């Protein structure tokens, strides 16, 4: 359960950024491993890509792209917050960052299908 003091937009933005960051950090080694298969066993890489054609995996991939987009725009928001002159519209920006990520990954998914 989310503790009461956490129930506000900026904390959600924080936790999404953290989850996406950690998620990416866990995914990345897998990604690197599969790519390096290109070096050692190209056949298995193709096998892998075929596997990724299935719907479930498509969805998971959409999730990953979403995470990446989310994390990136969230991160850019943070850096803007930290380095640009202060804006009182942090919540709007946080929501905006999530929205853009959603758009991008949505586009990715649509294209993939």
């Amino acid at each position, binding site marked *: 359960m989310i503790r009461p*003091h956490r129930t506000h937009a900026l904390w959600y933005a*924080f936790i999404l950024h953290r989850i996406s960051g950690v998620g990416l950090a866990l995914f990345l080694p897998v990604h690197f491993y599969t790519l390096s298969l290109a070096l050692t066993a190209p056949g298995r890489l193709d096998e892998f890509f075929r596997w990724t054609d299935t719907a479930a995996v498509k969805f998971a991939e959409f999730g990953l792209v979403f995470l990446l987009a989310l994390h990136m725009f969230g991160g850019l928001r943070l850096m803007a917050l930290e380095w640009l002159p202060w804006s009182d519209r942090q919540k709007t920006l946080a929501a905006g960052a999530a929205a853009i990520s959603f758009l991008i990954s949505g586009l990715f998914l649509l294209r993939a299908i």
Partner: protein
Amino acid sequence: MLSDSADMEVSVWRGAGVAGQFENFKVPAQENQTILDVVAWIQQNCDPTLSYRYACRVGMCGSCAMMVNGVPRWTCRTHVKVALQGNRISIGPLRNLPVIKDLATDMDPFFDKWISAEGVHHPTRSRDDAIEQIDPEDHARRQANEGIECINCSVCYAACDTVAGSADYLGPAALQRAWTLFNDARDAGRVSILEAVSGKGGCHNCHSQGSCSQYCPNDLNPMAAIAGLKRETALSFFKRRT
């Protein structure tokens, strides 16, 4: 609206140090009643050993903050109506500080960090000099004014998860004080302030969770102050290297 005779169910944290549990009390509801009044009523009428802290009772001293339904608040200025969930309230000691007993916490770590953040004026003049002329509309002065009304109640400190996770983290109030001084034209400590907020527990640990600004009872914005420190330390990071 509360009727005067209805009883509220109030659970209050009891215990010393890390051990403890919630205990339940029935407290008569009144038209005008703050959370602090509820706590005092329990001590005066139900359990004389209940420990808590307050002084000014009007939101000036910052010694009465507690967790009310899981959220940090100044209890002397929180009307029961605002906090009541159904007919229940839970009241606990402020988060992120060691508990002395029941609702009273040891605030020393909070103030130790205040001082470690160089949260103390670094004079440029003495009592023998005239008082400095300061343009109140000057940009830096206005930034300094933003955080100056902090009552060091530690509400922000209790709200921050980074404080919870990182024992060294100076926390929002101390950093906001450092930022205020940094912007004070009369302060000679700009370099030492930036130094102090750049260490292991410094401003760079803040994740902009914003709970500090969300709950500050005086509507201050420590998050913005910390962002200011990050900006200045980043700038001086490059300067020092070039």
